[in-house]
């Protein structure tokens, strides 16, 4: 069913037009990388603040208020350009292990973010100014750093279709 959806998109005239455009792919990919820097760069500093690696004099609650609107702008542009890249070559990505790994990692990063927001961040007033961050918050920071780094890595690896795990190739998904 997922394959049919990808094949359906692949045959759409707008998808074909985007795929055949000389400038669309380089333009979208470049904007994708730059917006990733905005989003992931700021989120990395938020995560490192939670872990206690940097910005220890900045109250924790300052960062979501002051930086998240920018990080989310970057994420929005990233999602749009990523979506258009997928829309332009769905069958290229359908059989790509790193594409699905990236999607799964993004879902996990989202779950980690929501879990942190609804479970740990509620008590932020108690540890906002202090240097001692609760273990749960530090853990969420480490997990987030690892997951977003893995998203960046799998995103780059999508270009290496010849380097997919053997077990994935054996599934013949892209055939």
């Amino acid at each position: 069913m997922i394959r049919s959806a990808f094949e359906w998109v692949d045959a759409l005239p707008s998808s074909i037009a985007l795929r055949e455009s000389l400038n669309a792919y380089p333009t979208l990919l470049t904007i994708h990388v730059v917006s990733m820097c905005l989003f992931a760069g700021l989120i990395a500093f938020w995560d490192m603040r939670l872990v206690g690696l940097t910005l220890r004099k900045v109250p924790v609650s300052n960062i979501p208020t002051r930086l998240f609107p920018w990080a989310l702008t970057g994420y929005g542009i990233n999602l749009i350009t990523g979506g258009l890249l997928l829309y332009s070559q769905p069958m290229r990505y359908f059989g790509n292990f790193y594409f699905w790994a990236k999607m799964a990692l993004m879902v996990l990063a989202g779950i980690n973010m929501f879990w942190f927001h609804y479970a740990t961040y509620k008590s932020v007033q108690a540890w906002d100014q202090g240097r001692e961050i609760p273990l749960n918050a530090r853990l969420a920071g480490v997990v987030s750093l690892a997951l977003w780094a893995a998203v960046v890595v799998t995103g780059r690896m999508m270009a290496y279709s010849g380097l997919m795990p053997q077990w994935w190739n054996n599934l013949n998904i892209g055939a």
Partner: protein
Amino acid sequence: MMQSFFEWMQGLPFSAWMLEETWASPIIQCAHLVALVAFAGAVLLVDMRLLGRGLIRTPLNQLAREADRWMIWSFVALFITGAPQVLSTALKQYYSPFFWWKMQIVLIGLVFTFTIRRRVVLAEEGTLGHWPKVVGFLSIGMWTGVSVYARLIGLLS
């Protein structure tokens, strides 16, 4: 002379190893991208602050001192992971205009960051008029240009 230097780099045993070893280039490129994210975050924290955005309640010089450590170390990581890529594809880089534009902006960006930008971020706030905004804007523009040209080397060369 420059062409001979790039031909020499391309002919090094290390360059051949980089091209022959299946995982060498992907691993180095992934590390380069992760370092780029860290570098971008460190630069943006301060540049946004210069533009009156982001962490405005934190003193600028305090924020800059904190972010500069990350900026310098991530730049070192960018250099360490970037150099092998230039070595292994030296002639491709040599014939790409984007490579030369990138390197020119990197050089200007480094000089700018460690002279004018450093002076502005460490100066007493409110004494420099509109200059902090100009510096923040130029810094974001330059490093964005570097990222764009870096991406275009691979895509359009």
